[in-house]
């Protein structure tokens, strides 16, 4: 089976299950379908999302909230609570490996995470206080914005940082890692620390408000703005996420917006799918998967926007 056909099949299955979920959800508010069908469908969708998330280079949380929020009968409050846990569990699971390899830098993550965690609490409270149609509209706009970012965002594998700024120097925001691809040891440092900190304040608000994870924003901020090597940016983004999502998740837990029946199948499905996705990295063509994920996100973002505006309730 060709990579393109595999990608199309996974994408079609994802859309089919999501569409079936929506059809089932539309029937008497989901009450016509036996209760066990929902966690099962959720597990299936999350499993597929987990498979495509790794080769597409995005976090499963970014796919989870727009797709499940648009096509399942759960209220967006519970979807965001589960979305945060999906992103959190994935980030926590990857954390130890990233730290040991040096691809994730605790030193770089901590200052950014403190600010982003604090603002994520505000974002979570704001998200739970806002009318759901407003959150849906903002979510749709954000997802469409992510699609644009995926299209236009450039990446720099080893950005040139000639001189670290004063704050970066004072905090010794630098490190070393062995690049597995080339086998060479890479020393890195960062600059533009203050703009980076300000940006992470905003990223924290979005992560808490939408429960969407924020790898899509963390990686460009660390790589293109602060000058961290791409692999360090991706690894450190995971560490930042694990701390930011912890804070925001607590708000949802304390507000009662985490239902195990929604959260657990999502977390388990996504993690199992991600393991398969990581193994299929060589088989699946990243660019094909990425295009398919963009198409799915476009559809889910438009759906969220139309749901929020009442055009497609």
């Amino acid at each position, binding site marked *: 089976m060709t990579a393109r056909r595999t990608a199309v099949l996974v994408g079609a299955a994802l859309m089919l299950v999501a569409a079936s979920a929506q059809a089932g959800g539309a029937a008497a508010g989901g009450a016509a379908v036996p209760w066990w069908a929902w966690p099962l469908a959720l597990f299936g969708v999350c499993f597929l999302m987990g498979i495509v998330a790794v080769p597409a280079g995005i976090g499963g949380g970014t796919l989870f909230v727009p797709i499940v929020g648009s096509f399942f009968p759960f209220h967006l*409050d519970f979807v965001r609570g589960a979305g945060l846990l999906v992103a959190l569990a994935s980030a926590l699971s990857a954390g130890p490996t990233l730290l040991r390899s*040096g691809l994730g830098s605790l*030193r770089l993550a901590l200052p950014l995470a403190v600010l982003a965690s604090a603002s994520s609490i505000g974002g979570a409270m704001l998200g739970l206080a806002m009318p759901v149609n407003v959150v849906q509209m903002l979510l749709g706009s954000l997802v469409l914005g992510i699609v644009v970012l995926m299209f236009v965002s450039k990446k720099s594998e080893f950005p040139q940082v000639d001189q670290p700024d004063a704050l970066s120097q004072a905090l010794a925001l630098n490190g070393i890692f062995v690049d597995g691809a080339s086998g060479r040891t890479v020393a890195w440092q960062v600059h533009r620390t203050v703009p980076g900190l300000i940006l992470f304040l905003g990223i924290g608000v979005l992560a808490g408000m939408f429960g969407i994870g924020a790898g899509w924003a963390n990686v460009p901020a660390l790589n293109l703005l602060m000058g961290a090597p791409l692999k360090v940016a991706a690894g450190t983004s995971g560490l930042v996420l694990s701390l930011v999502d912890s804070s925001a998740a607590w708000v949802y837990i304390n507000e009662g917006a985490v239902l195990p029946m929604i959260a657990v199948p999502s977390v388990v499905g996504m993690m199992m799918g991600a393991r398969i996705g990581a193994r299929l990295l060589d088989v699946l063509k990243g660019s094909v998967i990425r295009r398919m994920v963009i198409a799915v996100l476009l559809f889910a973002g438009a759906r969220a926007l139309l749901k929020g505006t009442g055009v497609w309730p």
Partner: protein
Amino acid sequence: MTAAPAPKTQPPEQLRYARLLDWGTWLGLVVLVLSFAAYALGLADPHVPVSRLPELWQHPVGRYLELTQSPTGWGWLALIHRGDIAGLAGIVILAGCSVVCLLALVPLYLRRGDKAFAMLCVAEVAVVVLAASGWLAGRH
């Protein structure tokens, strides 16, 4: 992404954090899966019957809490024997394990005279504890 096995190049606090995070995540996931299995298989009576969920989860969280008389904040601890509420235990471990990891770094940083990072660890713990305290719950 390729994980390069180069532990010797990483600072000790990073390796300690990695070890504790590993344990915390595994513990959280095991508790999460076991408690959910007990809940889904009907081994523990739930606070909200599973058959009622499809009519309830479409409501905003405030309405859901009202209809089910479910607790907010740490009130869930009193109902931990209920199948659905027990599922929160694993979630709480996952959301809280970073606190233990961060606190374990403070002595390492202080011993090295790195007060800035010791303070950053304490600040991050304070933020997570504030969020976890439940003090912010129900204030929207």
